[in-house]
């Protein structure tokens, strides 16, 4: 065996350790979601057990069903994503293309909003929303999420737009296209990968958000991240149900990842293949 092959073993070992550390909580959740409470608390842990759907039945159709919470999460995440992308795509295009005098400043300002520590603005946000009566509403939570996701999405998208040579757009103008036609037919199709990546990030951030939701949500609008938290109480923790909810909460994320996988890989590697299509 050559030295090179020997050297690869430590790398593989490290990779396995990291993968295990990352996978363990997921495997733990999935396994426990099919156990009964007794099996979970059994010592030594039971590796072999008869799977039960009791936990799923309880969290989906029981007295404290999380279906409304999943629905809340979905509305919030979709609403945030749609509004973010609808605003961020034209904004990023403008920042990438137009020769604005304030462009540099605007770019910095957009990014600077990402530097604020979230805990520092929770209370002001809470006060503002309370004053306009938007606590515990979809509008309120989506609005607050927009304040993070929009700058982030613009910042991410600008670099994708800047990758498209302006000459390509000029060619479209000379071919008789209007600015909007050039954007729709020539530019957007080329930044599809970047848009997919941004959609996934924005959706996931909204879906996973906890800190703001815990303050700004209530009994009407309660995303699944907050509902999950309620399975942990002073008297007892319903481990099986908690595990079942986390598996259910993970599903849309995994689904989204699978659907957008091809575009994500394309979007993330755009730098590596840049110019591959031309010249």
């Amino acid at each position, binding site marked *: 065996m050559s030295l090179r092959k020997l050297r690869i073993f430590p790398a593989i070992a490290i990779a396995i350790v990291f993968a295990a550390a990352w996978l363990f909580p997921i495997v733990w959740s999935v396994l426990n979601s099919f156990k009964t409470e007794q099996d979970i608390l059994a010592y030594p842990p039971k590796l072999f057990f008869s799977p039960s759907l009791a936990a799923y039945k309880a969290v989906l159709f029981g007295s404290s069903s999380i279906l409304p919470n999943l629905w809340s999460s979905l509305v919030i995440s979709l609403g945030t994503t749609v509004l973010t992308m609808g605003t961020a795509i034209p904004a990023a295009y403008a920042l990438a293309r137009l020769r604005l005098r304030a462009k540099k400043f605007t770019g910095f300002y957009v990014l600077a909003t990402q530097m604020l520590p979230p805990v520092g603005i929770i209370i002001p946000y809470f006060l503002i929303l309370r004053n306009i009566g938007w606590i515990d509403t979809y509008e309120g939570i989506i609005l607050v999420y927009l304040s993070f996701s929009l700058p982030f999405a613009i910042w991410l998208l600008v670099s994708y737009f800047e990758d498209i040579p302006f000459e390509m757009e*000029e060619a479209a103008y000379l*071919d*008789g*296209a209007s600015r909007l*036609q050039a954007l729709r037919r*020539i530019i957007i199709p*080329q930044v599809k990968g970047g848009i997919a990546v941004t959609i996934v990030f924005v959706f996931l951030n909204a879906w996973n958000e906890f800190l703001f939701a815990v303050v700004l949500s209530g009994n009407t609008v309660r995303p699944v991240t907050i509902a999950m938290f309620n399975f942990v109480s002073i008297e007892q923790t319903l481990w099986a149900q908690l595990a079942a909810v986390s598996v259910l909460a993970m599903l849309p994320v995994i689904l989204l990842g699978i659907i957008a996988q091809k575009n994500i890989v394309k979007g993330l590697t755009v730098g590596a293949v840049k110019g591959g*299509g*031309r010249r």
Partner: protein
Amino acid sequence: MTNPGQVRLDGIVKRHGDFSALRGIDLEIEPGEFFALLGPSGSGKSTTLRILAGLDMPTSGRVIIDGADVTSVAPSDRDVAMVFQSYALYPHMSVFQNIAFPLEMGKAAKGAIQPKVREAARKVRIDHLLDRKPGQLSGGQQQRVALARAIVREPRLFLLDEPLSNLDAKLRLETRFELKKLQRTLGVTTVYVTHDQEEAMTLADRMAVFMEGEVKQIGRPADIFARPNSIDVAAFIGSPPMNLIPASYSDGYVIVADYPLKTSCRIPGQRDVIVGIRPGALRFGRDGMPAEVELIEDLGDMALLDLEVGGIRMRARVRDGTPPREGDVIHVAAQEKDLHLFDRATGARIESQADAA
């Protein structure tokens, strides 16, 4: 009105802050003409083309196409087509879709698109590549797609921005020839930007020599070559460039390195001039200025000689006969018709009697 495609630029000025990219361009291009904008990089030729296309706005001046002032008309409404140096093909579309795009934007009838695209592709011989994506094509093929996209809509004006500069030397020669043929067949007015004088000389019916944001000379390539109107143009046109030698004129002769050369110029009195002699116009013989051969570059069918004539460097081109060897001392002279005289102070050409005739 005659054929469409008549262009007039009227006092075009383009400033970027304090920097003047164009300092007043006046040009007239006739319908069907192949017109080259030739100049070194940064001379303003590309800016002129972009203003003609509508991609840039002039600071002042007017762009007139077929009698109509289009200075503030959007590029999409000018009915002009352009081939970019980078080709600017749409990478996510097939070759067919690329060529069809201007037709779709022009609201062409659905049924008319297919035959027109095929016809344009056939003219530039890429009709077998219509299903490919631009990324799967060679540079030469991409260039043809860009051409097909320009001709498909039969515009009144073609604008070509250094279209051959990304091709390798052999392909460039072939494409140059085909481009000329294509333009002849289509008869569409073509404005061609290049820094390559050979391209301009071979392709253009007329050309404008750009330098530092100004047009220095306009004319047929052969005329500009034969009678450059200033030292700048003389130095730029011709390869290897013209020898430009400080000399003094008196009474029908210019004195170069103590040696009198007869000229057909007649100007009163004595004057300091620059005399220009093309490397190919230097003759070897018994008489003439004694010159030492410093270096020989043998190019096979010709040789370039670096000469030293009384402290002045000159280049000569020899096509036939046995070239001398390095270190030889030879005698060179030039016929009076081959001498170009320029005013040393203004740089302007001093017309000879042959010019006036």
